[in-house]
Protein backbone atom coordinates (compact mmCIF):
# COMPACT_ATOMS: atom_id res chain seq x y z
CA UNK A 1 0.00 0.00 0.00
CA UNK A 2 1.24 3.45 -0.83
CA UNK A 3 2.42 5.54 2.11
CA UNK A 4 0.92 8.70 0.71
CA UNK A 5 -1.52 8.89 -2.13
CA UNK A 6 -3.13 11.71 -4.08
CA UNK A 7 -6.24 10.74 -6.01
CA UNK A 8 -7.58 13.09 -8.65
CA UNK A 9 -6.42 16.14 -6.76
CA UNK A 10 -7.43 19.50 -8.12
CA UNK A 11 -6.66 22.84 -6.55
CA UNK A 12 -7.88 26.33 -7.43
CA UNK A 13 -7.31 29.79 -6.14
CA UNK A 14 -10.05 32.17 -7.12
CA UNK A 15 -10.80 30.73 -10.54
CA UNK A 16 -7.21 29.88 -11.39
CA UNK A 17 -6.45 26.16 -11.65
CA UNK A 18 -3.28 25.41 -9.67
CA UNK A 19 -3.40 21.62 -9.94
CA UNK A 20 -5.53 19.37 -12.06
CA UNK A 21 -6.10 15.64 -12.06
CA UNK A 22 -3.04 14.80 -10.00
CA UNK A 23 -2.76 11.08 -9.23
CA UNK A 24 0.30 10.10 -7.27
CA UNK A 25 1.42 7.16 -5.17
CA UNK A 26 4.37 7.69 -2.87
CA UNK A 27 5.79 4.36 -1.75
CA UNK A 28 7.00 3.74 1.79
CA UNK A 29 10.69 4.49 2.24
CA UNK A 30 11.37 6.06 -1.15
CA UNK A 31 12.71 9.46 -2.10
CA UNK A 32 10.22 10.87 -4.56
CA UNK A 33 11.31 14.03 -6.31
CA UNK A 34 8.82 16.38 -7.92
CA UNK A 35 10.52 18.43 -10.60
CA UNK A 36 9.01 21.21 -12.60
CA UNK A 37 9.53 24.84 -13.49
CA UNK A 38 8.74 27.62 -11.04
CA UNK A 39 5.00 28.14 -10.75
CA UNK A 40 4.11 24.63 -11.89
CA UNK A 41 2.30 23.85 -8.64
CA UNK A 42 4.98 21.97 -6.69
CA UNK A 43 4.47 23.93 -3.47
CA UNK A 44 0.70 23.72 -3.85
CA UNK A 45 0.92 19.92 -4.10
CA UNK A 46 3.24 19.61 -1.09
CA UNK A 47 0.94 21.79 1.01
CA UNK A 48 -1.99 19.57 0.13
CA UNK A 49 0.01 16.42 0.92
CA UNK A 50 0.90 17.94 4.31
CA UNK A 51 -2.82 18.67 4.85
CA UNK A 52 -2.06 22.38 5.28
CA UNK A 53 -4.50 23.22 2.49
CA UNK A 54 -7.64 21.39 1.49
CA UNK A 55 -7.80 20.46 -2.19
CA UNK A 56 -10.64 21.89 -4.27
CA UNK A 57 -11.50 18.29 -5.12
CA UNK A 58 -9.88 14.89 -4.82
CA UNK A 59 -8.51 12.97 -1.87
CA UNK A 60 -5.29 12.41 0.04
CA UNK A 61 -4.74 8.99 1.59
CA UNK A 62 -2.21 8.56 4.37
CA UNK A 63 -1.31 4.91 4.78
CA UNK A 64 -4.60 4.00 3.14
CA UNK A 65 -6.62 6.33 5.35
CA UNK A 66 -8.61 9.05 3.61
CA UNK A 67 -7.32 12.19 5.33
CA UNK A 68 -9.36 14.72 3.36
CA UNK A 69 -12.61 13.16 4.51
CA UNK A 70 -11.77 13.20 8.21
CA UNK A 71 -11.18 16.77 9.38
CA UNK A 72 -11.09 15.62 13.01
CA UNK A 73 -8.04 13.44 12.31
CA UNK A 74 -5.96 16.03 10.45
CA UNK A 75 -3.81 17.06 13.44
CA UNK A 76 -3.07 13.43 14.32
CA UNK A 77 -2.15 12.59 10.72
CA UNK A 78 -0.13 15.74 10.18
CA UNK A 79 1.86 14.90 13.31
CA UNK A 80 3.16 11.81 11.50
CA UNK A 81 4.63 14.08 8.79
CA UNK A 82 6.90 17.11 8.74
CA UNK A 83 7.57 19.73 6.11
CA UNK A 84 10.55 21.95 5.41
CA UNK A 85 9.78 25.08 3.44
CA UNK A 86 11.87 26.76 0.77
CA UNK A 87 12.60 29.78 2.91
CA UNK A 88 13.36 28.38 6.34
CA UNK A 89 11.24 30.25 8.87
CA UNK A 90 13.03 30.02 12.20
CA UNK A 91 11.35 31.02 15.42
CA UNK A 92 12.81 34.03 17.17
CA UNK A 93 14.48 31.95 19.87
CA UNK A 94 17.55 29.80 20.37
CA UNK A 95 18.56 27.00 18.02
CA UNK A 96 17.77 24.58 20.85
CA UNK A 97 14.22 25.89 21.25
CA UNK A 98 13.68 25.84 17.49
CA UNK A 99 14.61 22.19 17.21
CA UNK A 100 12.69 21.32 20.37
CA UNK A 101 9.44 22.86 19.05
CA UNK A 102 7.81 19.70 17.61
CA UNK A 103 8.40 17.87 20.90
CA UNK A 104 7.07 20.80 22.95
CA UNK A 105 3.78 20.89 21.05
CA UNK A 106 3.51 17.13 21.63
CA UNK A 107 4.04 17.70 25.37
CA UNK A 108 7.21 15.62 25.72
CA UNK A 109 8.98 15.84 29.07
CA UNK A 110 12.03 17.99 29.54
CA UNK A 111 14.54 15.15 29.70
CA UNK A 112 13.37 13.61 26.44
CA UNK A 113 13.47 17.01 24.77
CA UNK A 114 17.00 17.76 25.95
CA UNK A 115 18.45 14.43 24.85
CA UNK A 116 16.61 14.38 21.50
CA UNK A 117 17.69 17.94 20.66
CA UNK A 118 21.31 17.14 21.51
CA UNK A 119 21.11 14.09 19.27
CA UNK A 120 19.66 16.07 16.35
CA UNK A 121 22.25 18.85 16.79
CA UNK A 122 24.97 16.22 16.56
CA UNK A 123 23.56 14.44 13.53
CA UNK A 124 23.16 17.70 11.58
CA UNK A 125 26.63 18.93 12.50
CA UNK A 126 25.31 21.73 14.69
CA UNK A 127 26.79 20.61 18.03
CA UNK A 128 27.49 23.65 20.15
CA UNK A 129 24.95 25.79 18.28
CA UNK A 130 22.15 25.14 20.80
CA UNK A 131 22.39 28.50 22.57
CA UNK A 132 22.83 30.60 19.42
CA UNK A 133 19.93 32.79 18.35
CA UNK A 134 18.41 31.06 15.33
CA UNK A 135 17.90 34.37 13.50
CA UNK A 136 21.66 34.93 13.39
CA UNK A 137 22.39 31.75 11.42
CA UNK A 138 23.46 31.67 7.78
CA UNK A 139 21.04 30.30 5.17
CA UNK A 140 22.70 26.89 5.12
CA UNK A 141 22.78 26.62 8.91
CA UNK A 142 19.16 27.74 9.18
CA UNK A 143 18.13 25.07 6.68
CA UNK A 144 20.02 22.46 8.74
CA UNK A 145 18.11 23.63 11.81
CA UNK A 146 14.88 23.33 9.81
CA UNK A 147 15.78 19.74 8.84
CA UNK A 148 16.75 18.80 12.40
CA UNK A 149 13.50 20.37 13.62
CA UNK A 150 11.45 18.44 11.07
CA UNK A 151 13.13 15.12 11.87
CA UNK A 152 13.15 15.36 15.68
CA UNK A 153 9.64 13.94 16.01
CA UNK A 154 10.69 10.97 13.86
CA UNK A 155 8.03 11.52 11.18
CA UNK A 156 7.02 8.80 8.73
CA UNK A 157 6.89 11.26 5.84
CA UNK A 158 9.25 14.19 5.24
CA UNK A 159 8.12 16.84 2.75
CA UNK A 160 10.79 19.18 1.39
CA UNK A 161 10.01 22.24 -0.72
CA UNK A 162 13.10 23.35 -2.64
CA UNK A 163 15.28 22.70 0.41
CA UNK A 164 18.47 23.90 -1.24
CA UNK A 165 17.24 26.86 -3.27
CA UNK A 166 19.48 29.90 -2.73
CA UNK A 167 22.15 27.93 -0.86
CA UNK A 168 25.85 27.87 -1.72
CA UNK A 169 27.18 24.61 -3.25
CA UNK A 170 28.83 23.33 -0.07
CA UNK A 171 25.61 23.85 1.92
CA UNK A 172 23.67 22.11 -0.84
CA UNK A 173 25.94 19.09 -0.46
CA UNK A 174 25.47 19.01 3.32
CA UNK A 175 21.67 19.21 3.01
CA UNK A 176 21.57 16.54 0.30
CA UNK A 177 23.73 14.20 2.39
CA UNK A 178 21.41 14.73 5.35
CA UNK A 179 18.36 13.95 3.22
CA UNK A 180 19.95 10.67 2.12
CA UNK A 181 21.06 9.91 5.68
CA UNK A 182 17.55 10.41 7.09
CA UNK A 183 16.03 8.36 4.28
CA UNK A 184 18.43 5.44 4.74
CA UNK A 185 18.86 5.65 8.50
CA UNK A 186 15.34 6.45 9.64
CA UNK A 187 13.57 5.04 6.61
CA UNK A 188 11.59 8.27 6.33
CA UNK A 189 9.53 8.45 3.16
CA UNK A 190 10.72 11.64 1.46
CA UNK A 191 8.89 13.83 -1.02
CA UNK A 192 10.98 16.67 -2.36
CA UNK A 193 10.14 19.44 -4.79
CA UNK A 194 12.97 20.97 -6.77
CA UNK A 195 13.57 22.79 -10.01
CA UNK A 196 17.18 21.57 -9.97
CA UNK A 197 17.33 18.68 -12.41
CA UNK A 198 20.74 17.42 -11.34
CA UNK A 199 19.58 17.33 -7.73
CA UNK A 200 16.63 15.20 -8.85
CA UNK A 201 19.02 12.83 -10.58
CA UNK A 202 21.28 12.62 -7.53
CA UNK A 203 18.62 11.94 -4.90
CA UNK A 204 15.53 10.46 -6.47
CA UNK A 205 14.40 6.88 -6.46
CA UNK A 206 11.49 8.06 -8.55
CA UNK A 207 10.68 11.34 -10.22
CA UNK A 208 7.43 13.05 -11.09
CA UNK A 209 7.36 15.90 -13.59
CA UNK A 210 4.86 18.62 -12.74
CA UNK A 211 4.26 21.18 -15.47
CA UNK A 212 1.48 23.70 -15.81
CA UNK A 213 -0.54 22.20 -12.95
CA UNK A 214 -0.36 18.65 -14.30
CA UNK A 215 1.74 15.67 -13.33
CA UNK A 216 2.77 14.65 -16.82
CA UNK A 217 5.26 11.84 -16.26
CA UNK A 218 6.28 9.65 -13.34
CA UNK A 219 9.17 7.25 -13.58
CA UNK A 220 12.65 6.38 -12.42
CA UNK A 221 15.34 8.99 -13.05
CA UNK A 222 16.73 7.32 -16.18
CA UNK A 223 13.28 7.20 -17.79
CA UNK A 224 12.64 10.85 -17.00
CA UNK A 225 16.05 12.24 -17.89
CA UNK A 226 16.99 9.97 -20.79
CA UNK A 227 13.78 8.94 -22.46
CA UNK A 228 11.04 11.36 -21.57
CA UNK A 229 7.75 10.43 -23.15
CA UNK A 230 6.77 13.89 -24.28
CA UNK A 231 8.41 16.89 -25.88
CA UNK A 232 7.40 19.08 -22.96
CA UNK A 233 9.33 16.90 -20.52
CA UNK A 234 12.22 16.54 -22.95
CA UNK A 235 12.47 20.30 -23.23
CA UNK A 236 12.30 20.75 -19.47
CA UNK A 237 14.97 18.16 -18.64
CA UNK A 238 17.33 19.90 -21.03
CA UNK A 239 17.29 17.62 -24.04
CA UNK A 240 18.45 19.52 -27.12
CA UNK A 241 17.87 18.95 -30.81
CA UNK A 242 14.11 18.80 -30.59
CA UNK A 243 12.41 18.99 -34.01
CA UNK A 244 9.06 18.26 -35.46
CA UNK A 245 8.30 16.58 -38.75
CA UNK A 246 6.25 14.02 -40.59
CA UNK A 247 6.86 10.37 -41.34
CA UNK A 248 7.17 10.07 -45.11
CA UNK A 249 8.26 6.44 -45.37
CA UNK A 250 8.28 3.42 -43.09
CA UNK A 251 10.02 0.13 -43.73
CA UNK A 252 10.69 -2.75 -41.33
CA UNK A 253 10.57 -0.59 -38.23
CA UNK A 254 12.67 2.23 -39.65
CA UNK A 255 10.81 5.43 -40.42
CA UNK A 256 12.04 8.27 -42.58
CA UNK A 257 11.06 11.64 -41.20
CA UNK A 258 10.94 14.83 -43.15
CA UNK A 259 12.06 17.55 -40.73
CA UNK A 260 11.95 20.85 -42.56
CA UNK A 261 13.40 19.43 -45.78
CA UNK A 262 16.05 17.18 -44.23
CA UNK A 263 15.46 13.45 -44.05
CA UNK A 264 16.19 11.65 -40.81
CA UNK A 265 15.89 7.93 -40.18
CA UNK A 266 14.64 6.70 -36.85
CA UNK A 267 13.18 3.64 -35.18
CA UNK A 268 9.40 3.80 -35.07
CA UNK A 269 6.28 1.76 -35.71
CA UNK A 270 4.11 4.78 -36.45
CA UNK A 271 2.35 4.82 -39.83
CA UNK A 272 3.30 7.02 -42.77
CA UNK A 273 1.77 10.47 -42.48
CA UNK A 274 2.04 10.71 -38.68
CA UNK A 275 3.08 14.06 -37.31
CA UNK A 276 5.92 13.49 -34.88
CA UNK A 277 8.33 15.23 -32.59
CA UNK A 278 11.87 13.92 -32.54
CA UNK A 279 14.87 14.57 -30.39
CA UNK A 280 18.49 13.52 -30.57
CA UNK A 281 20.75 13.71 -27.52
CA UNK A 282 23.86 15.78 -28.35
CA UNK A 283 26.18 13.06 -26.96
CA UNK A 284 24.74 10.59 -29.51
CA UNK A 285 25.98 12.70 -32.42
CA UNK A 286 29.38 11.66 -33.81
CA UNK A 287 31.52 14.11 -35.77
CA UNK A 288 33.96 13.04 -38.50
CA UNK A 289 36.05 15.04 -40.94
CA UNK A 290 35.34 12.68 -43.89
CA UNK A 291 32.17 10.92 -44.86
CA UNK A 292 32.92 7.45 -43.49
CA UNK A 293 31.02 4.24 -43.94
CA UNK A 294 29.57 3.46 -40.55
CA UNK A 295 26.57 1.70 -39.11
CA UNK A 296 24.95 5.07 -38.44
CA UNK A 297 21.92 5.52 -40.65
CA UNK A 298 22.08 9.28 -40.65
CA UNK A 299 25.06 11.17 -41.98
CA UNK A 300 24.73 14.88 -42.66
CA UNK A 301 27.08 17.44 -44.09
CA UNK A 302 27.17 20.39 -41.71
CA UNK A 303 28.90 23.67 -40.98
CA UNK A 304 30.11 24.55 -37.49
CA UNK A 305 28.39 27.69 -36.25
CA UNK A 306 29.94 27.96 -32.82
CA UNK A 307 31.88 26.05 -30.18
CA UNK A 308 31.84 26.44 -26.46
CA UNK A 309 34.19 24.62 -24.11
CA UNK A 310 33.18 23.70 -20.60
CA UNK A 311 35.52 21.54 -18.59
CA UNK A 312 36.65 18.56 -20.59
CA UNK A 313 33.69 18.79 -22.97
CA UNK A 314 32.97 20.87 -26.04
CA UNK A 315 29.48 21.91 -27.06
CA UNK A 316 29.15 22.42 -30.81
CA UNK A 317 26.31 24.12 -32.66
CA UNK A 318 25.95 22.87 -36.23
CA UNK A 319 23.98 23.92 -39.25
CA UNK A 320 22.85 20.80 -41.13
CA UNK A 321 19.96 22.40 -42.95
CA UNK A 322 18.46 22.48 -39.47
CA UNK A 323 20.23 23.41 -36.23
CA UNK A 324 21.88 20.47 -34.47
CA UNK A 325 23.91 20.34 -31.29
CA UNK A 326 26.71 17.90 -30.65
CA UNK A 327 28.81 17.14 -27.60
CA UNK A 328 32.38 15.90 -28.00
CA UNK A 329 35.38 15.80 -25.71
CA UNK A 330 37.67 18.80 -25.66
CA UNK A 331 40.50 16.48 -26.71
CA UNK A 332 38.84 15.25 -29.90
CA UNK A 333 37.66 18.78 -30.75
CA UNK A 334 41.28 19.91 -30.57
CA UNK A 335 42.56 16.90 -32.52
CA UNK A 336 40.09 17.48 -35.32
CA UNK A 337 40.95 21.18 -35.24
CA UNK A 338 37.32 22.12 -35.13
CA UNK A 339 36.58 25.79 -35.63
CA UNK A 340 33.81 28.10 -36.68
CA UNK A 341 32.82 27.75 -40.34
CA UNK A 342 34.50 24.36 -40.75
CA UNK A 343 32.71 21.77 -42.83
CA UNK A 344 32.12 18.47 -41.13
CA UNK A 345 30.03 15.29 -41.17
CA UNK A 346 27.62 14.57 -38.32
CA UNK A 347 26.24 11.07 -37.95
CA UNK A 348 23.89 9.37 -35.55
CA UNK A 349 22.19 5.99 -35.41
CA UNK A 350 18.52 5.47 -36.12
CA UNK A 351 18.17 4.26 -32.53
CA UNK A 352 19.51 7.60 -31.28
CA UNK A 353 16.49 9.33 -32.78
CA UNK A 354 13.67 9.34 -30.23
CA UNK A 355 10.33 9.66 -31.95
CA UNK A 356 7.22 10.81 -30.12
CA UNK A 357 3.84 11.00 -31.72
CA UNK A 358 2.58 14.53 -31.59
CA UNK A 359 -0.41 14.76 -29.27
CA UNK A 360 -3.69 15.39 -31.01
CA UNK A 361 -4.75 18.95 -31.50
CA UNK A 362 -1.27 20.40 -31.39
Amino acid at each position, binding site marked *: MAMLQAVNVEQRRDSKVLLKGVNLDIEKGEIFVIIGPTGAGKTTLLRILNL*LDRPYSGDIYFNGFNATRSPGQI*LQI*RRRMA*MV*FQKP*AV*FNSSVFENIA*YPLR*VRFNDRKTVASRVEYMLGITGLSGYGKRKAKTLSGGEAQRVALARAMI*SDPEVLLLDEPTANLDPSSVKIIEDLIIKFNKGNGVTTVMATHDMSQGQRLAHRVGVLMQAELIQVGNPSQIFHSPDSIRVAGFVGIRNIMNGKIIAAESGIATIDAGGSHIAGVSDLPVGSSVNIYIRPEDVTLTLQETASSARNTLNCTIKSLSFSGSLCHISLDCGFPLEALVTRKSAEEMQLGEGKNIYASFKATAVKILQEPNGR
Partner: protein
Amino acid sequence: MQELWEALVQAVNLIVSLDPEVMEISWRSLYISAIAIILGAVICIPIGGLIHFHDFRGKRVVINIIQTFYSIPTVVIGLFVFLFISRAGPLGGLQLLFTPAAVIIGQMLLILPVLTGMTISALNGVDKAIKDTALSLGASGSQAIWTIIGEARFAVVGALILGFGRAISEVGAAMMLGGNIKGYTRVLTTAISLETQRGELVLALALGIILIAIALVINVIVNIFLQRY
Protein backbone atom coordinates in the same frame (compact mmCIF):
# COMPACT_ATOMS: atom_id res chain seq x y z
CA MET B 1 16.48 83.16 36.16
CA GLN B 2 18.17 83.09 39.57
CA GLU B 3 14.89 81.98 41.17
CA LEU B 4 14.41 79.19 38.67
CA TRP B 5 17.91 77.90 39.28
CA GLU B 6 17.42 77.87 43.06
CA ALA B 7 14.12 76.09 42.67
CA LEU B 8 15.81 73.48 40.51
CA VAL B 9 18.55 72.87 43.10
CA GLN B 10 15.99 72.52 45.87
CA ALA B 11 13.92 70.16 43.73
CA VAL B 12 16.91 67.91 43.18
CA ASN B 13 17.51 68.05 46.91
CA LEU B 14 13.95 66.86 47.56
CA ILE B 15 14.52 63.89 45.29
CA VAL B 16 17.97 62.99 46.57
CA SER B 17 16.86 63.23 50.20
CA LEU B 18 13.93 60.90 49.37
CA ASP B 19 11.36 63.38 50.65
CA PRO B 20 8.44 61.30 51.99
CA GLU B 21 5.73 63.25 50.20
CA VAL B 22 7.54 63.13 46.84
CA MET B 23 8.23 59.42 47.17
CA GLU B 24 4.68 58.62 48.21
CA ILE B 25 3.18 60.46 45.22
CA SER B 26 5.64 58.89 42.78
CA TRP B 27 5.02 55.41 44.11
CA ARG B 28 1.22 55.85 43.82
CA SER B 29 1.57 57.09 40.25
CA LEU B 30 3.66 54.08 39.32
CA TYR B 31 1.39 51.45 40.80
CA ILE B 32 -1.87 52.99 39.54
CA SER B 33 -0.53 53.12 35.96
CA ALA B 34 1.07 49.67 36.29
CA ILE B 35 -2.25 48.10 37.30
CA ALA B 36 -3.98 49.94 34.45
CA ILE B 37 -1.46 48.57 31.96
CA ILE B 38 -1.67 44.99 33.30
CA LEU B 39 -5.49 45.02 33.08
CA GLY B 40 -5.22 46.60 29.63
CA ALA B 41 -2.82 43.88 28.46
CA VAL B 42 -5.08 41.09 29.71
CA ILE B 43 -7.94 42.58 27.71
CA CYS B 44 -6.15 43.88 24.62
CA ILE B 45 -3.78 41.07 23.66
CA PRO B 46 -6.57 38.50 23.26
CA ILE B 47 -8.80 41.04 21.50
CA GLY B 48 -5.95 42.01 19.17
CA GLY B 49 -5.36 38.31 18.51
CA LEU B 50 -9.04 37.70 17.79
CA ILE B 51 -9.14 40.56 15.30
CA HIS B 52 -5.86 39.52 13.65
CA PHE B 53 -6.63 35.82 13.29
CA HIS B 54 -10.20 36.16 12.04
CA ASP B 55 -11.33 37.51 8.74
CA PHE B 56 -14.67 39.23 8.96
CA ARG B 57 -16.54 41.93 7.14
CA GLY B 58 -15.53 45.41 8.20
CA LYS B 59 -12.23 44.29 9.73
CA ARG B 60 -10.46 47.22 8.07
CA VAL B 61 -13.08 49.62 9.46
CA VAL B 62 -12.71 48.24 12.99
CA ILE B 63 -8.94 48.68 12.82
CA ASN B 64 -9.37 52.23 11.53
CA ILE B 65 -11.72 53.08 14.39
CA ILE B 66 -9.27 51.61 16.92
CA GLN B 67 -6.48 53.74 15.44
CA THR B 68 -8.65 56.85 15.58
CA PHE B 69 -9.04 56.37 19.33
CA TYR B 70 -5.24 56.30 19.85
CA SER B 71 -5.38 60.03 20.52
CA ILE B 72 -8.67 60.29 22.38
CA PRO B 73 -8.44 63.27 24.80
CA THR B 74 -7.95 62.21 28.41
CA VAL B 75 -10.63 64.60 29.63
CA VAL B 76 -13.16 62.92 27.37
CA ILE B 77 -12.30 59.57 28.95
CA GLY B 78 -12.58 61.26 32.33
CA LEU B 79 -16.00 62.66 31.51
CA PHE B 80 -17.21 59.35 30.07
CA VAL B 81 -16.16 57.30 33.13
CA PHE B 82 -17.43 60.04 35.45
CA LEU B 83 -20.91 59.70 33.91
CA PHE B 84 -20.84 55.98 34.63
CA ILE B 85 -19.51 55.96 38.20
CA SER B 86 -20.90 59.17 39.68
CA ARG B 87 -23.70 58.78 42.20
CA ALA B 88 -26.44 59.10 39.61
CA GLY B 89 -24.66 56.94 37.00
CA PRO B 90 -25.38 53.27 36.25
CA LEU B 91 -22.39 52.14 38.34
CA GLY B 92 -22.92 54.77 41.06
CA GLY B 93 -23.71 52.10 43.64
CA LEU B 94 -20.12 50.84 43.55
CA GLN B 95 -18.93 54.17 45.03
CA LEU B 96 -15.87 54.24 42.82
CA LEU B 97 -15.68 57.96 42.20
CA PHE B 98 -12.60 59.65 43.74
CA THR B 99 -10.85 56.35 44.50
CA PRO B 100 -7.61 54.96 42.99
CA ALA B 101 -9.77 52.33 41.28
CA ALA B 102 -11.54 55.06 39.31
CA VAL B 103 -8.21 56.41 38.09
CA ILE B 104 -7.11 52.90 37.12
CA ILE B 105 -10.31 52.39 35.11
CA GLY B 106 -9.88 55.74 33.37
CA GLN B 107 -6.23 55.12 32.44
CA MET B 108 -7.02 51.59 31.30
CA LEU B 109 -9.78 52.80 28.95
CA LEU B 110 -7.42 55.47 27.69
CA ILE B 111 -4.82 52.95 26.55
CA LEU B 112 -7.13 50.19 25.30
CA PRO B 113 -7.10 51.44 21.68
CA VAL B 114 -3.31 51.86 21.59
CA LEU B 115 -2.69 48.43 23.09
CA THR B 116 -5.19 46.66 20.84
CA GLY B 117 -4.05 48.44 17.69
CA MET B 118 -0.38 47.87 18.39
CA THR B 119 -0.98 44.21 19.23
CA ILE B 120 -2.61 43.83 15.81
CA SER B 121 0.30 45.48 14.04
CA ALA B 122 2.76 43.41 16.08
CA LEU B 123 1.03 40.21 14.92
CA ASN B 124 0.94 41.54 11.36
CA GLY B 125 4.70 41.97 11.56
CA VAL B 126 5.28 38.25 12.19
CA ASP B 127 6.51 36.33 9.15
CA LYS B 128 3.50 34.65 7.53
CA ALA B 129 5.55 31.47 7.14
CA ILE B 130 5.68 31.03 10.92
CA LYS B 131 2.10 29.78 11.05
CA ASP B 132 2.68 27.16 8.32
CA THR B 133 5.94 26.14 9.94
CA ALA B 134 4.25 25.67 13.32
CA LEU B 135 1.36 23.67 11.84
CA SER B 136 3.61 21.50 9.69
CA LEU B 137 5.70 20.67 12.77
CA GLY B 138 2.65 19.34 14.56
CA ALA B 139 1.18 22.36 16.35
CA SER B 140 -2.58 22.46 16.80
CA GLY B 141 -4.44 25.58 15.68
CA SER B 142 -4.30 27.21 19.12
CA GLN B 143 -0.66 26.20 19.66
CA ALA B 144 0.18 27.89 16.35
CA ILE B 145 -1.59 31.08 17.47
CA TRP B 146 0.38 31.15 20.74
CA THR B 147 3.56 30.61 18.75
CA ILE B 148 2.77 33.64 16.60
CA ILE B 149 1.97 35.78 19.65
CA GLY B 150 5.27 34.58 21.14
CA GLU B 151 7.08 35.67 17.97
CA ALA B 152 5.51 39.13 18.36
CA ARG B 153 6.47 39.39 22.04
CA PHE B 154 9.02 42.18 21.63
CA ALA B 155 6.63 44.40 19.70
CA VAL B 156 3.83 43.65 22.17
CA VAL B 157 6.05 44.53 25.12
CA GLY B 158 7.01 47.72 23.28
CA ALA B 159 3.32 48.56 22.97
CA LEU B 160 2.74 47.93 26.68
CA ILE B 161 5.60 50.24 27.68
CA LEU B 162 4.36 52.93 25.33
CA GLY B 163 0.86 52.60 26.83
CA PHE B 164 2.34 52.88 30.30
CA GLY B 165 4.00 56.13 29.30
CA ARG B 166 0.70 57.53 28.10
CA ALA B 167 -1.12 56.41 31.27
CA ILE B 168 1.35 57.80 33.80
CA SER B 169 1.63 61.17 32.08
CA GLU B 170 -2.07 61.90 31.63
CA VAL B 171 -3.74 64.39 33.96
CA GLY B 172 -7.37 64.76 32.84
CA ALA B 173 -8.76 61.41 33.94
CA ALA B 174 -6.70 61.31 37.13
CA MET B 175 -7.99 64.74 38.17
CA MET B 176 -11.64 64.18 37.25
CA LEU B 177 -11.93 60.61 38.56
CA GLY B 178 -9.44 60.61 41.45
CA GLY B 179 -10.09 64.09 42.70
CA ASN B 180 -6.44 64.67 43.70
CA ILE B 181 -7.04 63.69 47.32
CA LYS B 182 -3.83 64.02 49.30
CA GLY B 183 -2.43 60.69 50.41
CA TYR B 184 -5.12 58.78 48.54
CA THR B 185 -5.48 59.64 44.87
CA ARG B 186 -2.86 62.34 44.41
CA VAL B 187 -0.51 61.28 41.61
CA LEU B 188 2.46 63.00 39.93
CA THR B 189 0.48 64.85 37.29
CA THR B 190 -2.34 66.07 39.52
CA ALA B 191 0.16 67.10 42.19
CA ILE B 192 2.21 69.12 39.69
CA SER B 193 -0.91 70.88 38.51
CA LEU B 194 -2.01 71.73 42.05
CA GLU B 195 1.39 72.76 43.41
CA THR B 196 1.99 75.03 40.44
CA GLN B 197 -1.30 76.81 41.07
CA ARG B 198 -0.45 77.15 44.75
CA GLY B 199 2.95 78.65 43.91
CA GLU B 200 4.85 75.68 45.40
CA LEU B 201 7.16 75.67 42.43
CA VAL B 202 9.97 73.70 44.08
CA LEU B 203 7.74 70.71 44.84
CA ALA B 204 6.10 70.92 41.39
CA LEU B 205 9.49 71.01 39.76
CA ALA B 206 10.74 67.98 41.72
CA LEU B 207 7.69 66.00 40.71
CA GLY B 208 8.11 67.13 37.12
CA ILE B 209 11.73 65.97 37.06
CA ILE B 210 10.65 62.56 38.34
CA LEU B 211 7.97 62.32 35.67
CA ILE B 212 10.47 63.20 32.95
CA ALA B 213 12.92 60.67 34.39
CA ILE B 214 10.25 57.98 34.25
CA ALA B 215 9.46 58.93 30.64
CA LEU B 216 13.17 58.79 29.82
CA VAL B 217 13.62 55.35 31.36
CA ILE B 218 10.55 54.09 29.51
CA ASN B 219 11.87 55.42 26.23
CA VAL B 220 15.21 53.71 26.74
CA ILE B 221 13.48 50.42 27.53
CA VAL B 222 11.21 50.74 24.47
CA ASN B 223 14.22 51.35 22.25
CA ILE B 224 16.10 48.38 23.63
CA PHE B 225 13.11 46.12 23.06
CA LEU B 226 12.39 47.42 19.57
CA GLN B 227 16.03 46.99 18.58
CA ARG B 228 16.01 43.40 19.73
CA TYR B 229 12.78 42.89 17.79
